[in-house]
């Protein structure tokens, strides 16, 4: 009897174009509707066809949001999957696939034959293999077959009755086979189902960010496609119409950010999305935003660099880039969400802070976060009430009036009797070019003064465990909240507590005291310990250790636990 209880890692592997993503999407949906907690993350090669890609679906009693190396069930759709994932396949990993195809690479693997080709022949088309695989997985898990049938009916409805019927047949075939396998092989899977989970929202990072962007009143996006930032552009193109969102595919990233600034200048609410390489091109526009004091929100989906790097993989190495992007000195704010809830919130916060202080704000995500899917309760999505910061101008309006807090009331062209000018040169209050040293100092200090307010508005980090009494703090930012939380649970020691930052610059003054007399370990996906350095810069805190990873993959819970054990 092979028993799996409370925490299942099911991995689907195959070449691009083999339908791995379809299986994942169907399986995750059906499992969630059945009331299972699910978390799915994927890794894939930068190619359209071929290669070897995989998706991990965790099915768990408690909510989990991290990648594990362990594989309980591996659906190997071709033989390349096994060498590709060799170091993760253990003796107790159950590999499901066609024995015929896997024989050459089967050494040291426990393979259970699933005759996908025979099923496809019976169904008359290999296209149904994906649905068969979903059925097999659900049969193995002893999920309700009714859920699968209902979902397939909904999902394929627009393709016509014949397609629906064929898929239901494929699902049933797979389901019966999976159930039979469980019986024949003595496999027992026990994971709690909860009716509340069945009602939850199922979102990936991109979708949560897109919904937050819409909630923020975004009505303009101009961007140039670049993985993994493109998803937001696609999301707004798909759903933006009924929200009146203008979607422009720019000729390059330079045009994108300059359009974004033009849109905000005229009163629109714009976002631009890109990845590190595209953002490099935008930096003169970021500097422009700094001097013209025009809001702009930039989403940067990180991937490993330098340059083209690993286009489809993950890293957190662009914090310094975003922190220092653009020549000259000017205020900015940087957000880095880890969960759909945080993405929904910080998207709105990024618009709010950009608008309130007339600065560039940044949402720093990564491939791992954007592509990961999980279920969350709907009421965990918090809406920030939108404030209107645009004024109707009077005839004597001055765009850059010097004020105590540094924020000059922002007018837009065509609304009021005043004229609205902005200039990339150093300028006077009316935005005309000046070379007066006195005016330069007044304007520069006015801009920099805004940092006081921006810092006061900074979001507090999330505490995990007994931060007050723990000797050591494990600090994470961006996409690593899930792995930080799970590592803490595994280690389960009062000497270690966690702190997660979803705003990474500026850091809130009030959080500094949480670090007093603590040993600090920072967990981040880069080689330089960029956030660790930022803690020194912002709080004067020297961290004791860093746990870093820069191989293009997200942290695995097992690795983090092992590395922390060595440090504690």
């Amino acid at each position: 009897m092979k028993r799996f209880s409370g925490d299942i890692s099911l991995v689907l592997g195959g070449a691009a174009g083999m339908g791995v993503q379809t299986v994942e999407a169907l399986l995750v949906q059906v499992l969630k509707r059945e009331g299972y907690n699910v978390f799915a993350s994927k890794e894939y090669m930068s190619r359209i066809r071929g290669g070897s890609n995989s998706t991990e679906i965790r099915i768990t009693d408690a909510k989990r949001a991290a990648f594990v190396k362990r594989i309980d069930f591996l659906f190997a759709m071709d033989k390349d999957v096994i060498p590709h994932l060799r170091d993760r396949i253990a003796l107790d990993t159950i590999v499901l696939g066609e024995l015929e195809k896997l024989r050459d690479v089967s050494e040291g693997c426990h393979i259970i034959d699933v005759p996908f080709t025979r099923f496809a022949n019976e169904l008359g088309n290999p296209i149904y293999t994906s649905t068969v695989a979903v059925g097999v997985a659900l049969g193995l898990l002893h999920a309700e077959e009714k859920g699968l049938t209902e979902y397939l009916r909904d999902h394929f409805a627009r393709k016509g009755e014949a397609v629906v019927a064929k898929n239901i047949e494929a699902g049933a075939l797979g389901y019966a086979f999976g159930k039979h396998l469980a019986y024949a092989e003595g496999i027992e899977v026990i994971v709690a189902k909860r009716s509340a989970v069945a009602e939850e929202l199922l979102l990936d990072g991109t979708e949560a960010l897109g919904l937050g962007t819409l909630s923020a009143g975004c009505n303009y996006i101009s961007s140039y496609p670049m993985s993994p930032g493109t998803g937001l552009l696609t999301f707004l193109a798909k759903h933006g119409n009924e929200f009146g969102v203008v979607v422009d595919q720019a000729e390059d990233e330079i045009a994108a950010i300059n359009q974004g600034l033009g849109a905000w200048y005229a009163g629109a609410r714009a976002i631009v999305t890109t990845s590190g390489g595209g953002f490099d091109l935008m930096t003169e526009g970021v500097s422009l935003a700094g001097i013209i004091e025009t809001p702009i929100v930039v989403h940067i989906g990180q991937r490993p660099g330098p340059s083209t790097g690993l286009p489809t993989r993950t890293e957190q190495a662009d914090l310094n880039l975003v922190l220092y992007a653009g020549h000259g000195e000017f205020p900015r704010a940087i957000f880095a969400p880890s969960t759909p809830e945080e993405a929904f919130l910080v998207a709105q916060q990024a618009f709010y802070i950009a608008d309130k202080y007339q600065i560039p704000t940044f949402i720093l995500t990564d491939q791992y976060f954007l592509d990961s899917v999980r279920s969350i309760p709907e009421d965990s999505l918090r809406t920030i009430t939108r404030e209107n910061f645009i004024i109707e101008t009077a005839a004597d309006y001055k765009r850059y009036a010097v004020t105590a807090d540094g924020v000059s009331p922002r007018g837009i062209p065509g609304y009021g009797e005043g004229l609205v000018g902005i200039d990339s040169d150093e300028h006077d209050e009316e935005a005309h070019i000046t070379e007066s040293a006195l005016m330069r100092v007044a304007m520069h200090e006015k801009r920099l003064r805004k940092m006081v307010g921006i810092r006061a508005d900074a979001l507090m980090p999330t505490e995990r465990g007994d931060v007050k009494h723990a000797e050591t703090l494990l600090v994470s930012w961006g996409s690593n909240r899930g792995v930080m939380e799970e590592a803490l649970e595994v280690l389960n020691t009062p000497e270690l507590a966690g702190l997660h930052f979803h705003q990474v610059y500026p850091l809130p003054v009030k959080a500094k005291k949480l670090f007093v007399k603590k040993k600090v370990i920072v967990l981040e996906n880069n080689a330089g310990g960029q956030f660790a350095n930022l803690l020194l810069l912002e709080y004067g805190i020297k961290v004791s250790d860093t746990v870093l990873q820069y191989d293009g993959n997200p942290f695995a819970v097992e690795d983090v636990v092992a590395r922390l054990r060595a440090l504690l």
Partner: protein
Amino acid sequence: MLDKKIYDMPKGTDMAWCPGCGNFPILNIVKMALAELDIRPQDAVLCSGIGQAAKTPHYLRVNYFNGLHGRALPPAIAIKIASPHLTVIAESGDGDTYGEGGNHFMHTIRRNPDITNIVHDNMIYGLTKGQASPTSEKGMKTPVQTAGVILEPFNPLAVALALDASFVARAFASDILESKDIVKAAMQHKGYAIVDIFQPCVVFNKQNTYQWFKEKCYYVDAEYDKTDKVQAFEKAFDMERLALGILYQDTSKPTYEDLVRTSQGPLAKQEVSREALEKLINSHR
């Protein structure tokens, strides 16, 4: 008709242009065109990049976005989309528009937003003190092109025509009234309108002088068919005699803002439909 004095800056405003610069008459031409079209300063936005021509917004009282070198067009497109009721003009030099901003120039034409693009074409870099510009003639010697320019000059009109610009014109700064009528027609044209306007640079370009332009230029006559693209190409490629006037116009093309907007009015007034958002969120169950 408005009084063109409403676009004047206060007396004593320091101007960075050299005495005798071709930018002065162009400034006057734009003011006259705006006044004759009754466009209030509040309803016009002037976008510019960097260079001597790009300083125009500091000498013309309207709203303005004086942004980055080569980047006058992207904000101009966005402003027109966000606030279609505004008259949007992008005004910069040949280096700014055809060199640094070449990619934006090409793709703005493809979009056809309802903006007017006035390019002060002096065939030289003024602000950086006399290097070749994309439109400099072959053989012109400069501190950088010491043996003379070796590249083919950029042909803005032919490029615009090839990309199916909906309004293509050329003017000469000295001819105030003729140029004013061309700029006016460009502003009235619904779609992207380019006016490449010859502007002598009296300090750095000793080759293409007022006299040189006078001798080379002529106006297309009343019989000229501005819907004939082949003829327009012929004019654009004739480097011996330089044709002035509206060389091509197509009034049938839809504007970018009309195609890309799914709502009405200024984007500044747009509210989020909470109901639609709730529906979209719920579709993720």
